[in-house]
């Protein structure tokens, strides 16, 4: 009961802090690569590889503030489901300390695992309606490649970031980051596993900075 109340209080505090800090806004466009018509892995799956580069199709980018921010004891819960033999969403940015649940929405077994240095885990085989929903806590920044031991074509990406300021662009590459702290910062745009753009930016309170990548 106590923990519950504390949690609620935390949330309210967080919202208050944000409303104070989010005086600065960065917006702009990331120049996304062309949509790939002939991916190495079948087209219908959203994570594709091309020349060893993992990215989404249609291309999306993650724009984030390149600095450690937020509460170190931050915990959040996100979901990457397996639906129609694909990860949904296929690309998920999370803050360090986020727990990600992997619910199986298919009628078949899945075995989600990752050998990525940022997070090695193996959830074992499980079916739909597995309770509790198998989950992992992502406590190290880095790109995590999600695979299924049963369906070798399935790929998912989780980008674990140290900041809480991040956003996924739309499929045209437009983004808008709000609530950014004022001052001198570096904003990065993750485009694929091998490409991350970065730009220094001077954020002023109440102002909107225009940033285009690259």
């Amino acid at each position, binding site marked *: 009961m106590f923990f519950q109340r504390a949690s609620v209080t935390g949330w309210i505090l967080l919202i208050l802090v944000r409303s104070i800090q989010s005086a600065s806004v960065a917006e702009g466009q990331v120049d996304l690569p062309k949509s790939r018509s002939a991916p190495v892995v079948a087209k219908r799956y959203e994570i594709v590889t091309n020349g060893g580069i*993992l990215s989404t199709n249609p291309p999306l980018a993650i724009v984030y503030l390149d600095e450690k921010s937020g509460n170190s004891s931050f915990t959040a819960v996100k979901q990457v489901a397996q639906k129609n033999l694909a990860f949904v969403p296929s690309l998920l940015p999370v803050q360090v300390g986020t727990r990600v649940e992997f619910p199986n929405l298919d009628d078949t077994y899945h075995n989600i695992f*990752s050998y990525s*240095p940022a997070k090695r885990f193996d959830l074992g085989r499980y079916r739909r309606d597995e309770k509790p929903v198998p989950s992992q806590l992502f406590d190290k920044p880095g790109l995590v490649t999600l695979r299924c031991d049963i369906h*070798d074509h399935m790929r998912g990406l989780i980008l674990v970031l140290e900041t809480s300021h991040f956003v996924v662009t739309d499929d045209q590459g437009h983004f808008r980051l709000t609530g950014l702290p004022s001052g001198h910062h570096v904003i990065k745009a993750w485009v694929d596993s091998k490409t991350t753009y970065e730009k220094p930016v001077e954020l002023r309170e109440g102002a909107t900075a225009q940033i285009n990548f690259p």
Partner: protein
Amino acid sequence: MVIVFALVGLAFYLAQLHVSSEARRALQSDFQAELESLHQLEDLHNAALNERCRTLVTNPRIHAALEDNALDLLYPSAKDELRDLMQIDPVGPESKRVLRARFYRFLGSGGEVLSPPNKNEVGNLDPADERAIALKKLPVMQQVGYLPGNNSSRQGTDQILAIPIFSTETGEVISALVIGFKAVELPGDRNERSLTSGIWVGGNLDLPSLPKLAQNVTARKISDAVSRISRIEGNFMLTIDNGPHLLFYKWINQDSLYPAAYEVCIYPLTFYATWERRLRWKIVIGGLLVLVFAFAASDLIARGFARPVKELALVSEQEHRERQRAEAALETTNEELERTARYSADASHQLKSPVTVLRTGLESLLHRDDFKPEVYEELSILLHQTYRLTGVIDDLLLLARMDAGKLELQSVPVNLSAVVNEWLDDLSAMPDGADLKIDNQLSTELQVIGEKHYTSLIVQNLLENARKYNRSAGKIVIKARAQNGFVILSVGNTGRAIPESMQSHLFERFRRGTNSEKVSGHGLGLNLARELAQLHGGDLRLVGSESDWTEFEVRLRAAKDKIRRAAT
């Protein structure tokens, strides 16, 4: 005999060659069939392995380990996947054991062996073996190699498969999985007829059913054959354990990055050689038996054939002797005939001159007038007899010439009517011819073919006979008709008939009728006339002789353009 032996010998030699080559062909097809079944077994084995390996190299964990920079997890991940492949069941059936891997390794990006954390889990390999399974670079295709046993940790040759692992991200080869299996081997129960197979690689032959020494010798021979005969495949004969064997080798890992390996099959020919030797003996013995039998049979048959031939020879000898006798007799007869004819001719000539002398003498005596009248009568009779004698001699001379075949005819058309008329004129001038009634029914132009003198003689004979054997106040009828190119002249006369007993001898020489006592003649006339008629291609015959009517007819060849008229 020698030829027969040679031919039979040749035939059996050829038969033996044929049977032998047939047997060799059968043997080869046996060999091929066994080889084929071995290859099928190997193909099945390889197909099963390939399927296993294909699923292995697409395994997500292995890929994750290689692609997500987690090489430490490579062997542990593969361990689970390869666990069933590596589980060796030493008491299980051979067919299951062949699909068990003896070791596996991953190759790094440079083709080097990635060291496993625990060698016991991935199959022990000596450092030398690990070097042997490494490649200079990662292959893009599956590679087949053979690793000879090292007599310590590994017994027997292993077949190794190196399967490339392609990155699902880049599509490039990022590693290769090398798996070692026990090479397929035929069961080692070597007997005199079964195929044994093994692997030759790098100068070593692994063929467990052969003694070690024989393996080394054979391995050298294969090395030699590979370098000299063919790099791909070939076969040669060799002697193992004093028995002939056929060895077949074939390069089984062409286009492989691993050293060339050859499948070696050895087919013992000992059984075949024994069989062939036995067959040769059988053929020789059989051939001899057949030869002996054939000689016996042919002798029997020859005897059978010879009997009638001998009899025939005997008969023909007798016949020959008889013929010789007959020919000799004929010769004698001929000689006698010729002598007779010559004699007859000589006699005629010898007789003619004294008769002439006699007649001249008698005629000169008749011209004297100092004899008594009875003497003149006697002389006249004697003179008449000389004429008769001359006639006989003339006839004899003619007959003799005919008998000797010396009479040559000069056939011309002869007017038969004229001939008949001439003689009828003479006939009427005869003293006893005056009271005869002559009925000549011939047309004036009756032409026949012949020599006029002899035709005339025939007619004279017939007419004289008709006159001579006629009765007083009798008649002579002369007729003619045409028949098949002949003119048939018939002369009939009244008078006593010729007795039947005489009729068949009428035409013999010196035969005269019974009523001929008071008739002049010498019995040669009818014979001469018939022979002359026959000489002219015709004939003379008695038509009939009965009660006051005797008729002869002569057949003579008609002159062609006159036939029609003669017939009318």
